[in-house]
């Protein structure tokens, strides 16, 4: 079991529906987010390109955040999903500093929070993560990489893709379709 997500940069319009759907689904306080949108423009008018990416925790196989956590709050859960156990977290922020993707934020209740792939509240019930199921452009694919028939396996087989900052050596599990 290896959960992963692929985001199609050719279809994403950057509407941020994924951000607000995650906030309402996961009670993320206003002013914070577990996922966000990045837009990169290249070129000179009128020869231009834009890449739009819906980003979140990369659920790395080799996660610096899990390695540096002094209390074991950050851990690998089912399918390699990286989670934080709030009551074990002391809010030291080491994980925030160690993450190459800036995917974590200090929750006002005193612990560090981040994307969970909606593991417990949706995925375990057979639902897609909130961001995937809300996206109006259907640009996100989620599933088990060990299952060749999962949406994410199928789309990664047929499309060109990249990961972000692969040189950090974390083996990220968030893929961007090109």
């Amino acid at each position, binding site marked *: 079991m290896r959960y992963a997500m692929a985001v199609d940069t*050719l279809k994403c319009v950057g509407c941020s529906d994924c951000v607000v759907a995650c906030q309402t689904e996961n009670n993320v306080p206003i002013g914070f987010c577990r996922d*966000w949108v990045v837009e990169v423009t290249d070129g000179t008018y009128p020869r231009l390109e834009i890449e739009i990416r819906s980003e979140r925790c990369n659920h790395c196989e080799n996660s610096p955040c899990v390695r540096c956590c002094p209390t074991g709050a950050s851990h690998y859960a089912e399918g390699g999903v990286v989670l934080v156990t709030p009551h074990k977290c002391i809010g030291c922020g080491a994980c925030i500093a160690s993450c190459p993707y800036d995917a974590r934020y200090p929750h006002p209740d005193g612990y560090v929070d981040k994307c969970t792939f909606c593991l417990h509240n949706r995925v375990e019930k057979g639902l897609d993560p909130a961001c995937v199921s809300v996206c*109006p452009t259907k640009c996100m694919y989620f599933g088990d990489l060990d299952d060749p028939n999962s949406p994410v396996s199928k789309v990664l087989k047929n499309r060109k893709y990249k990961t972000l900052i692969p040189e950090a050596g974390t083996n990220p599990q968030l893929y961007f379709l090109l």
Partner: protein
Amino acid sequence: MSSRRSFIKISALGIGGIAAAGGLSRLATGAVSGNASTEKIDSPEQNLHRTPTYCEICFWQCAGWVYKDESGNIKKIVGNDDDQHCNGRFCPRGTGGVGQYYDEDRLKTPLIRTTTDGKETFREASWDEALDYIAHRMQEIAAKHGPECIALFTHGSGGSHFGHMLKAFGSASITAPSFAQCRGPREVGFLTTFGDIIYSPERIDIRDTRCMVLIGSHLGENMHNGQVQEMSDAIDRGATIITVDPRFSTAASKSKYWLPIKPATDLALLLSWIHVLIENEWYDKAYVAKNTVGFEQLREHVRPFTPEWAYGITTIDPNVIVETAREMRNASPSVIINPGRHVTWYGDDTQRMRAVAILAALLGAWGRRGGYYQPEKLHLPSYPVPPFPVPRRQPTEAYGGKYPLANEVVSNGLCDATIPTVERSCSYKAWIVNGTNLLAAIPNQANTLKAIEALELLVVVDTMPVELTGYADVVLPECTYLERYDMLRNSNHRLPNLALRMPAVQPKYDSKPAEWIARELAAKLGLEAWFPWKNIEEMLDWQLKQMGTSLEEMQRLGVKNFPRENDDLYFNENEEAVFNTNSGKIELYSSDMENEGFAPLPVYTAHEEPPEGYYRLNYGRAPMHTFSRTANNPNLTDLMDENVLWVNPKVARLWGLKTGQMVKLKNQDGKQSTFAIKVRVTERIRWDSVYMVHGFGHNNPKLTRAFGRGVNDTELITRVHIDPVMGGTGMRGNFVTFITEFEPNGKEAEA
């Protein structure tokens, strides 16, 4: 203003600390506030109670489910899988609709304008008192001037309730800015060509198209949900998208062709495309011969409009004009020239939309799969009421003789007719305004304020304190769509359908549903006969039973799709198609236009260019906001809390502007923006124009998140080019320059 109707800041109290913006580079993260504290709930889906609704954050009206947590608080809203508007997926605004309910800046209680110590202010009132006051003033005005001197300006679901009340009272002057400030020209352009309008949601078959041309539509930034979904599928299918836009829009970045057109020259490109299709015999000959009139006149008319001619005007390479025309021809008839939505630009907009319609006709796309389908809606009977009194004057008489082809009431026509003149008999004396902030919706604010100044009564019914609320005599707080029933959504679509909105929770504060307000006001006006139902549930149930369903069933389903009455989603190729035009055919040469003294074939007119040091003010939409009405929604403000000014790097160099720098703007008439706006230096815009998202720069301090954030484009649109065909307010002939030194008074003043 030196008048009795001065702007009242509803309350200066309670403006808490506005959170400082975090210096985040992330596009979608907004201000970071440190005081939010929410309980951590990971509720299993099945524990959440859900009720159906259809969304009111924009006109698309997607049907969805409102989920509540164990404590009965609204937790989230998601799309209804059976709904053709959204296919189970809400857009960010719909998902963020919860914020409209929770917004602590909402209007909370009725307010009546009063003078204390020589100072105008609002005092809180009970509903009974506020409605008594309005009824009394309406009766006074009716006795003095006639009931037809009361007008309703509306946008959204409240309109049907207040419109019903007003019609019973004796006025038919009911208008929405969605016609003359928005989609009017396209409806008239298509009506005069095909004898039918485009409808909303638009009847364009993106699902099955092979080629879509976006000309002035930034789909994806304007989040027309079903269309964005179908466009995304079209990208997957490899359909050709051709985007014409002076700005490198999101859609342009997804397109096979981007035509970076010089602003205000779109009609020249359209005429040239028509020229290329005809000269190369690339049009659908059988379709044109069978279904159209005026082809020979059209051929003669467009003969001079070669791609080389268009190049000199539009700056688009002639080869690209030919190549894109060939793409359309190759996809014909499964091709869409997207009619767009906000198309009131330069005052010759109906003519431009006629050219769009003609192009669609030449490609044989109207009535064809992948082009423009024939939508259908239910014949839903209304609850029986006595006939409405015949008003002594129709609203069209208010702007008598003008805008002859307008097929809806022209809002700015009523606004103009409110300003008294010697020669005009009809002046409006009272306005009821529901769900639209007219000072942001109708351009030329000075004119709108002059009209407001002349009113004897202004009633504003809204959920939020907006600019217009400050000028009201009475403010009525309606509850949000999440707290009420409304009329059934009965939309034109591929399948006829109904959607129900019901309250998920009780109205917050002392706010009330629009239907209740209209019914109670009607009772005070002695119009009970027109509101014979006990409550809205009874009325809806009666309607639903006529359709073979019931309120009880709809509460469970939310949406119900019905089979089509006619099997005519696309033309039956073996039958003669009949069009609702004078000739019964598609009129390439428009007899309606000719009969009214307008050019029967579209003519390109050069529009004014920016003076030196000025830049054309272009504006558009962001996917997370609707007009100016979501600018204070906490969830959506979190995604985008201000607009920014797009400036080309060449221009920025010339003026020494840097990304993040605050500037004020001044237009060609010397009108200066109230607040400052953050510069965004980007290659995505031409050097002859600047761009901002509409709907920001609120100056009502009661909007704690929206106040002073960004610039209100409408206040800079002082020059309006009226479309003589249908009264549309062309807004894109305004030019601005930068003011780099100023006294901070908006968001930046807080720092």
